[in-house]
Each structure stands twice: as C-alpha cells, then as structure tokens.
C-alpha cells in the first residue's frame, strides 16, 4: 500500500472545500467541493483516540473523510460540533459521591458536567484508554468519561480505584 494510493482510497477532503450549511439533531447539510448533500451523518472512526477525524455518510455511502474537522471555517465547525455533541453525547464525571453494591450490581452516584446522575454497573465496568482517560460503562451500555482521574478529589479517586 503506497501513500498516494491510500489517500485516493480514503477520499480525503480538503477542509477549505467543505462547508456545513445546516445542522439538524444528528444530520447536517454539507457542501463538498461545490456539491450540496442533504441528510449527511458525520461519524468518528476513532471516537476516543482521534476524535478530530470525521467521515461523512449519506445512508451507506461514504462521502469523504476530514483528517481534522477543527480546520473547517468557524461557522461550519460550530454546526458540525453541535451534531457531534449529540451523536457522541458523553457526560464527563466531575465528582463521585458514592459507590455501593446493590442487588448484584454497583450503584454509582456521580456529578457530571451534564448534572448529577445515578447509574448501575456490573463489576467489570471501567475501561482505561491509552491516554489515561477512563470510561465507565453502565449496565444499560451507557458510557461516562473521566477525563483526568488524577484531578478528581481524593474520595472520588478512592471509589474509582476500588472499582478498577
């Protein structure tokens, strides 16, 4: 596989030739190299490790890939991020108030950037990402992120280490 070959395969898009026109929940209307596509869904191939990469899909068809969507013009970027925030909705844990075992599961009471929440997990629920961030997956399959476990207060850290 040679470098130039790859780029053709991937349909890499030049951010200067991409404009996001409108954002609706999980869809955008986007203009790519002069052509307008409606009902386009952006997807992140690496939601945790390279969140800046975005691939545009219309139904099953791949329209192209942005290596770094943050290089779009400010208006487009803002619109795209609005959609990404919905597709990749993920509360950030700010504080853990308590973890206790309840009916074979663990009950977590936490404060997130989206507000306080109580959720239940199985015992193996924490995933450590390469960069040190943590993901907590609850019994319903929802995921909560701990951006910087070291920066949490000591009590929260104690609860986390208990569950790891």
């Amino acid at each position, binding site marked *: *596989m040679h470098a130039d070959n790859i780029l053709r*395969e*991937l349909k890499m898009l030049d951010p200067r030739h991409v404009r996001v026109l409108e954002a609706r929940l999980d869809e955008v209307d986007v203009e790519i190299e002069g052509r307008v596509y409606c009902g386009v869904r952006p997807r992140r*191939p690496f*939601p945790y*490790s390279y969140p800046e990469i975005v691939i545009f899909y219309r139904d099953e068809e791949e329209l192209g890939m942005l290596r770094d969507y943050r290089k779009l013009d400010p208006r487009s970027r803002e619109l795209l991020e609005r959609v990404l925030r919905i597709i990749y909705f993920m509360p950030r844990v700010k504080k853990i108030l308590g973890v206790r075992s309840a009916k074979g599961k663990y009950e977590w009471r936490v404060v997130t950037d989206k507000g306080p929440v109580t959720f239940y997990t199985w015992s193996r629920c924490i995933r450590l990402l390469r960069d040190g961030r943590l993901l907590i997956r609850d019994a319903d399959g929802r995921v909560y992120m701990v951006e910087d476990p070291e920066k949490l207060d000591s009590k929260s850290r104690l609860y986390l280490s208990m569950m790891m």
Partner: protein
Amino acid sequence: MGGDEDDDGIKLYPSSGELPPPLRELLEEGEEVVAVARSDLVGDEYGEKHVVLTNKRLLVLNERLEYEVPLSKITMASLRSYINTCVMALDTDEGPKSVVVFTKARLKAFENLVSLINNLVVGKIPYSLLKRQLLKRVKAEAERKSSKAVLLRLLGLLKPIAPLLAATIVVAVAMRLVNLIPPYLMKILVDEVLTTRAHVEKLAQIALSLLAVNLVNTALGTLNGYLSTKLNVAVANRLRYKVFSKLQELSLSHYDRFTSGSLFSRVIDDVNRIQWFMTGSFNMIFINAAMIAFIGATLVTLNPWLTAIALLPIPIAILGSAIYRRLAARYYHRLWRRWSRIVSIVSDAINAAILVKSFGKEPTFREKFSESLEEYERAQMDVFKFEQEIWPAVGLAFTASNILVWWMGGLQVLSGAMSLGSLMAFTSYMWMFYTPVFSLLENVKSLQRAAVAANRIFEVLDLEPEVEERPHARDLELGGEVECENLWFTYDGVHYALKGVNLRIRAGERIGLVGPSGSGKTTLVKLLLHLYEPQVGTIRYDGVDVREIKSSSLKRQVAIVLQNPILLDTTIAENIMLGREDASPEEVIAAAKAARAHSFIMRLPEAYDTEVGSRGSRLSGGERARVALAAALLKNPKILILDEPTAALDALTEEEVTEELERLTKGRTTIIIAHRLSTLRFVDRVVVMDEGKIVEEGAHEELLRRGGLYKKLWEAQLKGLTRMSAAAVSEGYAR
C-alpha cells in the same frame, strides 16, 4: 504392569552398570549406547524386552539377542497403536519389520526412541550434535528427579530475597520466644509472691514485665506481618515473572506439547503452591524447630519425669492421624464424587437446556437432581460419623496424660519436691509444646508438595527454545523469492507432517496451496515463518538460510493470516496496528478498507475504538478474519501468506475479498491456502499437497488436464455446486 510413576521406560545414555547384561558383550569397539527402551510385553504375555539404540545399530534383547539391524539399513521408524498395545515398526532395506510390542504405558518411551531413530536415519542429524543435546536433557532430568536438588534450586532462585527471608524467620522466632515468657513470670508470681506473701515490690515488677512483654510482642507481630506480606508478594512475583518470560521465549512447538490449560496452571497454580509454602510453611519449619528445642529444654529443666509423661500422647496422635489420613481419603473422595455428580447435572441442565426442554426431560432431571442431593447428604453424614470415631480417641489420650501430669505433679507439690508455680508453668508449656510438634509434621508434608510444584515449574524453565536465532543472524531486505529444500517436519517425533517438501517460489509469484485436510499445508507455512524448526531441510529467502535471518526482520516482511484468527483483547484499531505499531489512523482505515472490514467497523458505535473482547469474542468469525487480514496488509509485507482467508466469510463477502486480494497481491509473493478452489482463480501456480508431500504443481487448466488429485478436488466442489443449483432449479419448477 506399568511400574511405578517414575519409571518412564527409557534410559538415555545409560551408564554401563544399567545396561542389560547380555548387551555388554555385544557392543563393538567404538559403539555407544544412545538409549535403551523397555517393553512391558513379550508377545501377548507380560514380560520385558530391551530395545537398544546405539550409534551404529538397533538391537532387540530378550535374555539374548533377538534381532539386530544396522542404522544404515533403516529408512524410517514408526509406531502403530491399538486399543491397549502399540507396535514399533521399521522400514528397512529388506522390507518392513515389526520390532516389538508394548502396552500404552510405554508409548511415551517408544515415541522418544522412534524420534531418536528418525533423527539419525531420516534427519541425518550428526550423531555428535544429537549426543550433546541429549546429554544436556539427561542431566536436567536427573536434577529434577532428586527433590533435594529441586529444593536447593528453588532456594537458589530465591537468593536475591534471602535477606528478607532471613529477617522474616528471625522476627517470627523472636515473637514465639517472647510468647514463652509469661508462664515463667506466672511461676515467679505464684512461687515468690503469692504463696509466700513476701516480696510485694515484685508484684509491680512482674505486672510491668507482663505489660512490656505484651508491648514487645505486639510490635514484633506487626513487623512479622509486614515482612511476611512483603515476602509473600516477592516470592510469587519473582517466580511468575520468570515462568512468564520463559513462555514468551518458547517456540510454538512447546505450546503444542503442553495443553494451554497445563501451561496456564503452571504459571498460576504451581506458583501459588510454592508461594503458600514459602510464606506459610518454610519459615514455620525453623520456628517450630526452635520452639520444640526451647520448650522441650524448659520442660526438662522444670521436671524431667513429668516431661516423659507429657510426651506419651504424641505417638498416639501421630498414629491416629496416619489412620485418619488413610481412611479419610475414602470418605472424602466419595463426598467429592457425589458433589461432582450434582455439578454435572446442573451443568447439563443449563448447557443442554434446549435438548432437555425439547425432549421434555425436565421431570427426569428434577428427579435425578434430588436423588443426587440425598446421596450427597448421606455421604456428608458418613464423613461426620467417621470423624467422630477418630478424634475423640486421640483427644482422650491427651486428656489422660494431662490428668496424669496433674496427679503426679500434684503429689510432688504436696511432698514439696516441686513448687506450685513450677507445676503451673509446666502445664502451660506442655500445651505450648504440642502445637509445634504437629505443625512440624504438617510442614514436612507441604515441603513435599512444594517440591512437586517446583519440579513442574522447572520443567518449563528448563525448556530450550527450539527455534534458535544464530548469533550472527542479520537483517535482510527480502526480495520475495522463497525456496524449500527437502523439508521434513514432525510435531510429536512420531508422525511426519512434512515428508521431503521441495518448493521454489519466484519473487512476486502467487501460489495456491491446496490439498485434503491434514496434508501439511498449514505446517508448511508455519515453517516458512520460522515458527518451527524443521528436523531436516532448509528454507531460504533470496538464497539465504532462514536461520541466518533475524527473526524480527523476517516477521516484519512476511505476513500470515491464519484460519480462525484470534484477536487480542483490545480495540480493533490496536489489533490492526499489530501489523505496524506506528501506523497513522489513515493507514489503519485504508488497511481495513482493503480487507473489507471498514464498513462493518463503522457500523459499531465506537468504530475503530471498539474493544473486541477476549480472543475477539465480540466479533463474528468473518469479522475477525477481516480484521486479521487488515493487520497483515498494514505490514505491506513482501511475502503474504493466507491460510484459508475466506473460510469464515459468506459467499458475497468472499467474492469481494477475493477481488480485493487479486488487486493487493499483484507483484507480491503470495501463498494462499484454500479449500474453496474458486478463491484461487488469480494465482499463477497451484501446488497440490497430499500426506506431507507435494504431488502436483502447475496452472489450473494444466492440472485439470492431468486428471490427478487436483481434478478430483475440483470435481467434488463442482458437484456440490451443481447439486445446489439443480435443487434450486427443481424448487423453481415446483413453485
């Protein structure tokens, strides 16, 4: 028959004293005995024959020489196995010859012998090399067999933590000794203060001493706990690390030899056993010995006669526990059998739920289960009754001797021969004396158990990687040319999976490897990657012997995708990046696209960051295959080996992947193993293997014309397809 467990039926390089007598006269000048294997049958009767391999001949002895053949006349040795017996046979210049019959207890021994013979006659391995390897093995085995040597070796392994070990023992002994002081203080209290009502100032002194002893004891206890925890972790981690890194070094052939479960249990269970021993029993040996010495001396000083009485119940208790152990095995084994029956019913009812329910067998199962529960209950009660028969009797012996001590001692106190304080101290020490005695007996048993575990660990540590990189091996930029010359290979030393394979692949050539299952295709490609060392023959890349090429260099440039690939328990992205650790995300996506994996990956919410689960269990077989293919393609390898790349794919994806493969393999040396011959439509040459040999070679049409094995395989597949389409057509008419 069968002999004891240690008797493995074969002796390598026996010293002359161990040779069967008639043999000694038969040996010629310069003839050396390589191995003597003993059969356990003579015809259809139990008996013994010696099969002797020397560097020149193979001899069979039964009291006298029965058969002999020079090695130069043997073409190959083999084993045939039946229900209970096996026969060793030779192919010789004078035709086939069955040499000896033996029961399966000796199979291992004769497998070894056959492998040795074949190494010499088929492998043409120089005798001097073989001898060197074998002597090393003999020495290691001898060392493992002596449990003293094993324990010494274990201690040697633990040398770096010797100071810690010593400190733990010293502190623990000190703690026990401090524990001995209070009864002595009580004696002084009774004799010099309480009974005489004098020396009132001593009361305070003794009380303070008791307090001090207690404080020292608490401090030592904490220190002891700290040290033993540290020791505990240090011992286990050191051993585990050693075994684990050895596992990483081993050749794949070792993994084949041990089942994965047994290797697993060596890293985990055996190390645990040693850990328990080192921290639970090893220091206790010293502690108990010290306690017995100190308390014993104190008892004798206090009163030798009473000491003799106090010792009486010990032999009774030892006898009792010996009887107990013998009988307990029966009762507990029965209990355990009953319990496993319960477990097996539950597991059947759950694992085969669909079967049980579809046949309406629930009532039967309920009944069986309740019966087993009752049986278990009965067995449990029997165990209780049995326990009641032994221990009270032993207890009675102790009570009797205790009463005897009070009686005799009491008489002596009354007659003034002994002080009251001494008697009280004596009885306290007496009870303290029993514990270390029995504990020491237990320690000896756990010492034996630890030696067994250590032995199993050393067995792994002693393995030598079979695929050894030569010290002067070098990096080589591969051009893509591969050559196999006269490859012979066996996994078990008995059955040869490859029998003289010769194959030459030009740079950039695409080869299809076909043949019935077990014909040696997968073995051949594993050898190409130098995962195994062939017993005979050479593999060359661009004319360079594979043993002269650095393994890292080879693995960077040759990619292999195995059938039913297993993934690591990490993300999809990282599994693909096994192909190249520094790959950019774009390259990962491109490789996945080429392997037709991208679209299913993008349908997962976490896409490339999805964790695949242990062994890749969260993906389907076809998905795993495509991820593994992406990893191989990411390497951009000079040589690509695909073992049934499309086996786990559905017909549609297979078509897509085949198309993609055709494009990707253009100009790249490629070997594709395939059962579905349609995958092979773009290869330059088809190589047909059967029973470890290459039987046909050529282009697809040419092979069809020739009408050999390839044509048969092709027609069988075609027939399957026609039957399917015929069925489809007739179904169409029926509608």
